[in-house]
C-alpha cells in the first residue's frame, strides 16, 4: 500500500500530462511564441489553486498522512543559481520540448528515442554535481 499510492499518483500524473498535451513539443513551442493561452491556463490555474490550498493547509494546520503538520521546506535563498540554472533548463526545455516529468511520460507513450534525452539529462545532473563547488550559487 505504501508503494501503491505513489504508483497510482504517478499513473494519474502521466495520464494528465498526456491528456493536457503538456507533454507535446508543439505546445511548448506555441507557449514560448505566446500564440496560445493553453499552457498559461494550465500552469496559471494549477498555481492559483495551489496557492489557495497551501494557504488553507497552513491556516487550518492540516496534517499529512504521517500526522505531522503540513509545511513546505523553503528553497535556499540565492539569485545566481536560480536565474542561471533556470535559463540553462529553459534552453533545454524549449529544445527537447519536455521537462523532466514529460521525459518519462513520453517514454511510456512509446517514444523510445526519449531514452537518449533521459540518459543525457542524468549525465547533465552528474556534471552539475561534479562542478557544484566551482559554480556561483
Amino acid at each position: 500500500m505504501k508503494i501503491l499510492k505513489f504508483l497510482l499518483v504517478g499513473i494519474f500524473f502521466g495520464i494528465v500530462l498526456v491528456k493536457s498535451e503538456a507533454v507535446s513539443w508543439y505546445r511548448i513551442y506555441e507557449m514560448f511564441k505566446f500564440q496560445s493561452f493553453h499552457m498559461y491556463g494550465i500552469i496559471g490555474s494549477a498555481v492559483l489553486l495551489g496557492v489557495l490550498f497551501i494557504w488553507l493547509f497552513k491556516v487550518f494546520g492540516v496534517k499529512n498522512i504521517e500526522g505531522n503538520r503540513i509545511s513546505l521546506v523553503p528553497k535556499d535563498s540565492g539569485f545566481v543559481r536560480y536565474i542561471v540554472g533556470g535559463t540553462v533548463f529553459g534552453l533545454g526545455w524549449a529544445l527537447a520540448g519536455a521537462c523532466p516529468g514529460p521525459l518519462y511520460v513520453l517514454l511510456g507513450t512509446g517514444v523510445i528515442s526519449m531514452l537518449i534525452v533521459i540518459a543525457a539529462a542524468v549525465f547533465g545532473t552528474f556534471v552539475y554535481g561534479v562542478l557544484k563547488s566551482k559554480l556561483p550559487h
Partner: protein
Amino acid sequence: MEYLLKPWPWYVSGPLFTLVMLLLIYFGKTFGMSTTLRTLCSIGGAGKYSDFFRFDWKAYRWNLIVVLGAIIGGYIAVTFLSDGSTIALNAQTVSDLSELGFYNAGEGLLPTEIYAWDNVLTLKGMAILIIAGFLVGFGTRYAGGCTSGHAITGLSNLQWPSLIAVIGFFIGGLIMTHFLLPLIFSP
C-alpha cells in the same frame, strides 16, 4: 467517456496538476520530478565522484515509483484514453513551424523531425537530443528544481527563489525558441 478521450482543456488539467501536488504533500513528500535524475546518478555510483550524490537514495525510492507510474500513465493515456485527435495549435504556430521545416505539426505529440529514428540517427539529430537532455539535467539541478518543483510547488508556496527560477526558464525558453531554433532548423 467521449470527454475523457478528447484532449482535456486547460481548466480541467491545471487543477488536476494541483491535485497531484497536494496528494504528494499529503503523503508527506513533495512534487519534484528533476530530483529523480539525481537519485539515478546516486544509484549509478556517482557518489564516488562527488559528495552531492552521497545521500541515502533509498529515502527517495518513492519518487522513482512515481516515475514508474508516470511511464505507465503515459502508456495508458495513448493506448486507452485517446481518440487520435490532432493538437489544436494556433494556425500561426503551424505556419511558423513549416518555415522551420516542421510539417504536420500537431499530428502526434512530438515532431518526427526531432524524435523519429531516421533523424535521431544522424550526427545532427543525435547531437540535438544529447544537448537538449544535458541542458535539462544540468539546468534543473543548478536551479534546484524544474516545472513541478519550482513553477507549480514553489510558486504555490510563494517562494522568491522559484519565481526567479521560472523567470530563468522563460529567458532560456524564449532564447531557444526565437533565436536558436531558427538557426538549428532553418532549411
